[in-house]
C-alpha cells in the first residue's frame, strides 16, 4: 500500500474520532432528557405534540416486553406502508416520470429492506420509484428504522446501567427523540452541504440535454410480444438507435442521501448509489458521506460510556471496532491499489502524480481506489450498504474484505444502534469466557451474566450466520437461484454469498452483478432481512430486561476489568474468531480460491 492510502485512512479515522466525543455526549443528553443547546426549545413543541396525540407520557416507561411489542408494531406498520405505497404509486401524486406499480415480490423485498434498516435495493432506483414513494416511503423508513435501532440500544444501555427495575424507558419517547434531535438536524446539515457540492433537490421531471457528440447503438428488434426477431438465417435482427439527447435523472436527492448515509441505511436515490455523480459529486462530498456512515455508530460508543457512568467502557468498545476496521481496511486498500493482476500487461495500474491507478473497474475517477476501498469497508462495517464503487468488480481479496466485514455480523460500528447493541452482545460472550478464565461467574458492568443472558446471546450470535449460510445454500442449488449470478463459476458463488450475507446481516450492499430482482431472491431476501433484524431486536431487549432486574455487584480486584487493552484484544478475538470459523469454508470456495487462481495465471 502507498503512503497516500495510509494517509487517507488516517485522515478518515482522525476526523471520525474527533467527532465521537461531541456528538456522543450530545446523544447522551438526548436520552437522559438534558437540555440540548436550544434545539429542544425549537423542536420541543413538536415532540410534546407527538406524545399528546399518541396518548403517551414522557415518563411512562415500559418493561422489555411492552418495549419490544411497541417496536414490532411500529415496524410492522412501516413495512405495510412502504409496501402499499409502491403498489399504488401510479394513483398518487409526485410521479413525474410515470413509474408503474412495483411488483408484489419486489415491493415486499423493498418494504422489509427499508423497515429493517437493510436498504438492500433489488430495484433500479431512478426507473422504479416515484418521488412520493422515495420520500414518504423510503426516506421516512430511513429515519425511523435508524431511530428504532437507536431506541433499542438506549433500552439495552439502560438495562445495563439500571438495577433492580423492569423499566427500560419508553419506545415512543426514544423513537421520537432520536428522530427529532439527532437524525433530523444532522441530516439537514449534511443535505445542505451536499446541495452545495452539487447533489440535486428538485421535484421537476428528469432533465433532457442535447449531447455534444451524438452516437448510436444497436439493439435487438422486438416484435409486439417483446421477443427478439430473428432473420431467415437465425441471426437476430438489430435496430440502430441514434442518440442525440441525454435524459438525466434528478429528484429530491440531497434530502434522501443525507439520511441514508447518517442512518446507516444505504438505500440510494439512484441505482449505483453513491457512485452516481449526482449522489456523490466531489471528493469532499465523498468524504462527508463516508464520514456520515460511521459517525453515529462511533459516537454512540461514547454515549454508551456516559450512560453507564464509565466512559472507558465506551472507548474500549470503540477501540475494538477501530482495530477490526483497520485490520480489514488496510488490506482492502492494498489490494484495490495493487490492481488486477490479469490487467498488468494491458494497462498501467500504477499510482502516479497523474492517475490514482489500481483496480478501476467499477470505480469513479474522482474517487479512485483508495477512497472506494475505505468506503467499501466502512459501509459494510456499518450496516450501511451504500456504495461508491462496484464491489462486484473488486479484486478477489479486496472484495473479501467488505464481504467478511458483513459476515462479522455488522458489529464493527454496525448500524446506528444495532451495531453497538450487536457488539455489546459480543462483549457479553467475551466477558463470559474471560470471566470463567479468571475464576468468577462472569459479570459485565456489575451485572452477572447467567444462563438466560447466554441463551439470548447465543440466539443473537447464531442468527445472522445461520441466515447467510442457509440462504446461500438454498440459492446455489435451486434453479431459480442459479439464474441470479451474472458472473460464472467461482465469482458467481461470491455474488450469491455476498447477496445473502448482506441481507442476512441487514447490510444492503451487493455484488451488484447478482440479478436479485426476481420473485425467488426478493422473497428469500425479504425473509432473511426480517429474521435478521427482529430475531436480534427481541432477544436484545430480553437481555436488557433481564439485566435491568439484576442487582449491581460492586467491582473489586477480582472483577474482570472490561476497559483494558487486554479486554479489547479479547473482544476483537471473539468477533474475528466467530466470523472466521463460520465463514472460512465458504470464503475459501469464493474469494480465496478466485484469488489463488488469479495469481496462478
Amino acid at each position, binding site marked *: 500500500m502507498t503512503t497516500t492510502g495510509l494517509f487517507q485512512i488516517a485522515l478518515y479515522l482522525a476526523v471520525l474520532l474527533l467527532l465521537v466525543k461531541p456528538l456522543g455526549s450530545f446523544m447522551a443528553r438526548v436520552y437522559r432528557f438534558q437540555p440540548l443547546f436550544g434545539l429542544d426549545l425549537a423542536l420541543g413543541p413538536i415532540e410534546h405534540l407527538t406524545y399528546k396525540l399518541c396518548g403517551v407520557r414522557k415518563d411512562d416507561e415500559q418493561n422489555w416486553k411492552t418495549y419490544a411489542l411497541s417496536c414490532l408494531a411500529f415496524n410492522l406498520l412501516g413495512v405495510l406502508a412502504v409496501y402499499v405505497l409502491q403498489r399504488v404509486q401510479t394513483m398518487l401524486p409526485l410521479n413525474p416520470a410515470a413509474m408503474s406499480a412495483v411488483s408484489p415480490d419486489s415491493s415486499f423485498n423493498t418494504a422489509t429492506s427499508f423497515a429493517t434498516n437493510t436498504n438492500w435495493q433489488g430495484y433500479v432506483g431512478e426507473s422504479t420509484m416515484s418521488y412520493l414513494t422515495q420520500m414518504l416511503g423510503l426516506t421516512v423508513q*430511513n429515519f425511523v428504522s435508524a431511530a428504532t435501532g437507536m431506541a433499542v440500544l438506549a433500552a439495552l444501555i439502560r438495562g445495563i446501567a439500571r438495577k433492580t427495575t423492569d423499566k427500560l424507558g419508553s419506545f415512543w419517547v426514544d423513537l421520537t427523540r432520536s*428522530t427529532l434531535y439527532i437524525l433530523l438536524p444532522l441530516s439537514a446539515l449534511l443535505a445542505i452541504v451536499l446541495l452545495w457540492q452539487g*447533489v440535486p433537490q428538485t421535484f421537476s421531471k428528469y432533465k*433532457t440535454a442535447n449531447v*455534444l*457528440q451524438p452516437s448510436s447503438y444497436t439493439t435487438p428488434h422486438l416484435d409486439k410480444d417483446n421477443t427478439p426477431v430473428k432473420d431467415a438465417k437465425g441471426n437476430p435482427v438489430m435496430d440502430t438507435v441514434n442518440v442525440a439527447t*441525454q435524459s438525466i435523472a434528478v429528484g429530491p436527492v440531497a434530502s434522501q442521501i443525507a439520511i441514508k448515509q447518517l442512518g446507516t441505511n444505504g438505500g440510494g436515490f439512484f441505482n449505483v448509489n453513491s457512485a452516481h455523480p449526482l449522489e456523490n459529486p466531489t471528493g469532499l462530498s465523498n468524504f462527508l458521506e463516508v464520514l456520515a456512515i460511521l459517525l453515529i455508530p462511533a459516537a454512540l460508543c461514547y454515549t454508551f460510556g456516559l450512560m453507564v457512568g464509565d466512559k472507558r467502557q465506551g472507548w474500549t468498545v470503540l477501540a475494538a471496532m477501530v482495530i477490526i476496521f483497520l485490520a480489514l481496511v488496510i488490506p482492502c486498500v492494498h489490494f484495490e491499489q495493487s490492481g488486477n493482476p490479469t490487467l498488468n500487461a494491458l494497462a498501467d495500474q500504477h499510482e502516479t502524480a497523474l492517475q490514482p491507478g489500481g483496480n478501476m473497474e467499477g470505480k469513479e475517477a474522482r474517487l479512485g481506489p483508495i477512497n472506494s476501498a475505505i468506503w467499501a469497508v466502512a459501509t459494510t462495517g456499518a450496516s450501511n450498504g451504500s456504495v461508491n464503487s462496484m464491489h462486484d*468488480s473488486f479484486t478477489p481479496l479486496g472484495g473479501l474484505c467488505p464481504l467478511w466485514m458483513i459476515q462479522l455480523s455488522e458489529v464493527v460500528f454496525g448500524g446506528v444502534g444495532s451495531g453497538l447493541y450487536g457488539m455489546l452482545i459480543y462483549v457479553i460472550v467475551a466477558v463470559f469466557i474471560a470471566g470463567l478464565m479468571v475464576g468468577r461467574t462472569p459479570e459485565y458492568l456489575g451485572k452477572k451474566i447467567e444462563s438466560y443472558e447466554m441463551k439470548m446471546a447465543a440466539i443473537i450470535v447464531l442468527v445472522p450466520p445461520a441466515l447467510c449460510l442457509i440462504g446461500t445454500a438454498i440459492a446455489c442449488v435451486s434453479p431459480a437461484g442459479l439464474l441470479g449470478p451474472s458472473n460464472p463459476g467461482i465469482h458467481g458463488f461470491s455474488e450469491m454469498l455476498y447477496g445473502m450475507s448482506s441481507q442476512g446481516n441487514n447490510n444492503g450492499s451487493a455484488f451488484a452483478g447478482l440479478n436479485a430482482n426476481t420473485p425467488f431472491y426478493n422473497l428469500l431476501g425479504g425473509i432473511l432481512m426480517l429474521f435478521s433484524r427482529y430475531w436480534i431486536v427481541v432477544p436484545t431487549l430480553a437481555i436488557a430486561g433481564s439485566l435491568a432486574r439484576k442487582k449491581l455487584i460492586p467491582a473489586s480486584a477480582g472483577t474482570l476489568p472490561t476497559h483494558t487493552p487486554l479486554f479489547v484484544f479479547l473482544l476483537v478475538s471473539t468477533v474475528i474468531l466467530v466470523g472466521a470459523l463460520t465463514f472460512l469454508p465458504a470464503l475459501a470456495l469464493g474469494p480465496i480460491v478466485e484469488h489463488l487462481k488469479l495469481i496462478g495465471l
Partner: protein
Amino acid sequence: MKIIRPTIICFLLLSLITGIAYPLAITLIANVGFRHQAEGSLIDKNGRPTVDESAAVGSFLIGQTFDQPQYFWSRPSATSPMPYNAAASSGSNIGPSILGDTVKSRVDALHQADPANSSPIPIDLVTASGSGLDPHESVAAADYQISRISRIRRMDAEQLHALIARHTQDRAFGLFGEKVVNVLELNLELDQVASIAAASQPAATTK
C-alpha cells in the same frame, strides 16, 4: 390498546415530519441557495451553468459518450441499453477473473484509433466506471489521448496540455478525492478553440 394508538399516530406524525416537511424544507433551501445544483448542475455549450434545459448540453456532473477520435474519449460505460444512459446508472459488475477480455477490446480500440501511440494506457481509460456516468477521467487518461487529438485537430501538444490543465480539478482542499479532468467541459472547450479540422476530416468511424 395502549400500543395501537401510539403506533399509528407516531407513524403518521413522523412520516409527516421526515417524509414531507424535511424534504420540502431542503427543497426550499435548495431553491434559494443552490438552484443550479438542485436542478442537476446543467451547463450550456459555453460550459456555463444554466437551469434552462433547452440550452443545456448536459450536466457538469454527468459524463457523456465520447468515442470519436477528435474528442477526448470518456471512460467506458456499462449502462444499458447505451453507454452514459443517465436515466439508468449501472456498473459492469464484471468480476476480476473475466475482466481481461473486455479490457483487451477497449485497449485494442484505443490502439486502433492511434496506432502510433505506444505509451502505456492509463487503467481508468479502459475500465468502466461504477456509475457508468463518470464525468471525469484521470489526467493521465487525458494526456494519453493528446497524441491522437493533436494529430486530428492539428493542435500543439502544449496547447492541449494547457487545455487539460484548465479543466483539471485538484483534490478538494488538497485532501479529498482524486485529481481528475472533466471530459465534457474539456471537449466543449476543445470544440471552441479548434473548431476544426473536424469538418475537413471525414467523420471518424464510431467505435
